[in-house]
């Protein structure tokens, strides 16, 4: 059921082969997209599972559990982080579009992911701010992505990015301050 490639690629990536990532990402994304579609097709709310479950399902499916270390797992979720971010942001936009008319799809996505509605606006704004942050400090933006969009720990984030724990910690703190200020400014501008 699982894809031996993915496990293999995760190993390669963990041991420093950055090309592995290029091969890994599309497989993970496809699976996530496919699963998201399945989750969306389950109409009833008692069938809805959340993004966490969705990512776990993708992980269990793609990766040979017996053959991975926690580092591989962190890498996997590190990749998923980008995808989750994209899903959540698309979703948040979709909800706003839906409110302007149409877009039942977006509303069921809300159910599928279990995202609280009040968070939609925050997430959309955060995504914009994160985009701006990435322009001046891409690594820092990745730290935020992993910490916020998957809940990876400091250590796990450090492992995925191949930097020290203390760097992650520093980046995390200053990024939060920067983003918070950015969002506050935008809010008062609006």
């Amino acid at each position, binding site marked *: *059921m*699982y894809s031996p490639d993915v496990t293999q690629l995760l190993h390669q990536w963990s041991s420093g082969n950055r090309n592995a990532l290029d091969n890994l990402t599309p497989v993970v994304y496809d699976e996530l997209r496919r699963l998201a579609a*399945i989750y969306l097709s389950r109409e009833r709310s*008692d*069938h*809805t*599972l*959340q*993004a*966490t*479950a969705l*990512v*776990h*399902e993708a992980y*269990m*499916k793609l990766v040979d*559990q017996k053959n991975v270390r926690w580092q591989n797992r962190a890498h996997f*979720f590190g990749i*998923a982080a980008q995808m*989750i971010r994209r899903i*959540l942001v698309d979703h948040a936009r979709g909800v706003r579009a839906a409110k302007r008319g149409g877009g039942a799809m977006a509303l069921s996505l809300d159910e599928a992911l*279990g*995202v*609280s509605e009040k*968070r939609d606006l925050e*997430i959309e704004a*955060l995504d914009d701010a994160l985009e701006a942050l990435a*322009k*001046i*400090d891409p690594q820092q933006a990745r730290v*935020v992505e992993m*910490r*916020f*969009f*998957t*809940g*990876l*720990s400091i*250590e*796990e984030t450090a492992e995925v990015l191949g930097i020290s724990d203390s760097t992650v910690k*520093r*980046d995390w*703190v*200053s990024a*939060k*301050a*920067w*983003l*918070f*200020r950015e969002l*506050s400014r935008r809010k008062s501008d609006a």
Partner: protein
Amino acid sequence: MTGPTEQAEHAARWQRVKQILDRALNLTGDDLTAHLDAECGSDTALREEVLSLLDANDDAGTFLEDAAVDITKGPAAGAGRRIGPYQLQSLLGQGGMGEVYLSTREVDGYPMQVALKLIRHSAMTPRSLRRFRLERQILARLHHSGITSLLDGGITDEGVPFLVTEFVDGTALDKSPVPESMPLAQRLEMFLAICDAVSFAHRHLVVHGDLKPGNILVTADGKIKLLDFGISRLMHSSGDTTEQRTGGTTQLAMTPAWTSPEQLIGQQAVTASDVYSLGRVLYFLLCRQSPIPIERMTPIQLHDALKETSPRPPSSWADDGDVEGDLDNIAATALEFEPADRYPSVDALAEDIRAHLTSRPISARPHTRRYRLQKFVRRNRAGVIGAAAVLLALVIGLGLAVWQARIAQRNYERAERRFQELRRLASNLISETDDALARLPGATPARAALVRSSLEYLDGLADEAKGDPRLREELANAYEKTGDVPGRPGTLNLGQITEALQSYRKAESIRRAVLAAPAPETERDRREEALANTLMRIGSILRATGDAQAALDADRGALEMRRKLLDRSPNSVPRLRNVASSLTAASTTLSTMGAFRGVLELRGEALRVYEQLVKANPSSEEDRQGLALAHVRMGSILVHEKEYADALKHYHQQLAIQKQLRSAHPGQAQFEIALSQSYLHLGNAQRIAGDAKGAVQSLAESQRIIEPFAAADPNEVRSRTLLATAKHRLAQARAALGQTDEASRALRSVLEERLLLAERNPANAGARGEVAETLSALGDVAMKVKRHEDAGRYYQGALDIFVELKKEGRSNFANEEEVQRINRQLAAIAKRKP
């Protein structure tokens, strides 16, 4: 603003800001000022930048700390940490819910060993904390030798809930060598001890929710001790609603193999979920295998697989012969996909194990099938009924295979006996499912699905059955039953009348062929009775399609046969009943043909027979219902003969009977519907007799009773038809009281509903006749308020339908009378025109 150079400058400056900020974050007061002075110098913009970020940091609070999606669940804890008074020593285990550490606490100067479990979970709200404490108190009261006691619990500084239990020096059931070394009976005793602990918890309203060998410790001397009682529920209750689902699913991502199907899709564990997991544990103890292959499945895949796959019998794995029938059945019952199909309690499961151990009969084998069927039906889901149909098909298919094998094999008698068994099972399945469905509102799609798959298999079986009269008779029974399901008028129906007629005709031809063969007298009587029954069904179907002549043939055939049967045994209650019902049926058919003298005669005779029956046996509801209907029919023919006073007496008598019957069965569809119909009859008679006020009262009551049943299942034609009729008559009564606006509004809505009903079943002439009836009533109301043009249009519409029906040869006498009346009205309108 973002040229490449400019962006590079921004980036470089940001690195510098970060550096200054990083140190500044740890400084206050003068130190901070000194740091900023040193780093920023005269660059006030830089200084401002850092200061504003410092402010932002102060204000940010928990900003971004609560991850949008939390995959890893909190910070890693670890051995060596201290939580409250507990010193964490070493990791005992790790699972979806968190980690368990062997920990110590100093008590009176001595270290006491405990197990401390960190429950990884997202942030707790004050409300969820309260619930967590409440649940903990419940768990703390759970003192049982088979359950590890909860000693303490709390929340760590990071907000992670933890629980402290006694430390049991044991090995998990699946790792322990003890069970394997035991003989089967001893393993079952061990299982009973597990059941006992779970049952104890259930009595204290605690569900385990995560029973698995890993949570069942076996001590060196073979005692069992259950871990983690109520933890899964605790986890659920400690989060808010969205977190609950995450908790459930992530937990399941870790140990789906032992979990009940309902938990796999994120539902909260209930006692039946524990019964399921106990079934898995039993299965494990019997053969150390998994009932279905579950390698590398996600929870959802597993859920679907469990739905589609029956667990493999544990005995099929067994290397010893001890795990035979009983234990297979017990495991299968505990492992039913639907919670309601499992043992109703852990005690019931344990009782069957005990019965097996003491060689008493177990409940799983003799009762399961019936029990399961009732549950199927009670849940009233098409999918489940689909499963019942598949089961039925399987049983019949199996029967066929065995039967063929019988011919091929020497072992004739044994195959024969097995086949009889399967055959009986098949017909029970049909009748039990069907009878139960008949009493339930909203179940018609399920019945229709059942029928279709049954028919396919019956047709297959029929080809093989030639030459075996008993098998042929049973086939006829099965055809008849399936015919009843889609559309026998008078039972709940989907309007699929043609399909039903075909089934009945198949039954009829089989029965006639069987009757032609020589047989002993009692056997022949029985077969004649059966044929008469089939003919009655055919008559009633044909009547509904408007083919009165053919219906009368069938009715008369049945009546003749039944009268002869009664002659042979004049005091037989069933034969009296049969004659009465044949009289009634024939009279109804005659009335559709306008042969009213014959109608009055037959109905009078039927009424007397029913009175005789009820007198002889007053407790029989069936006969009382029959008597009530006999009154209705007398009333109706008397109304037609304009004998209103006599007619109303009969209508009041039937209402009294139906009221009694209903009060004995409140809420049951068939009695409620009958009562509604009863009021409808009375109200209509009152209206025609000129008592419009009384009519409005009775008809409104009729409508009130039937409304919920029509709403329960929009596919249920009968109650919708009845509701439309009640509304129609009520509108007419209101019109008679001068409430014309209300009446015409109501009639227009009835018209819509009746059009829908007629469209649904074009073969039902009655439904189209009813559309015409409403059009004509609308015409009457329009006439009353002198809107002659409207009236003309309505009448013309009604006339068109009646003419059409007549052309198709499916009109009845009442229609003809109505056509004449409409023509008179139309003529009157035409006269008014200039």
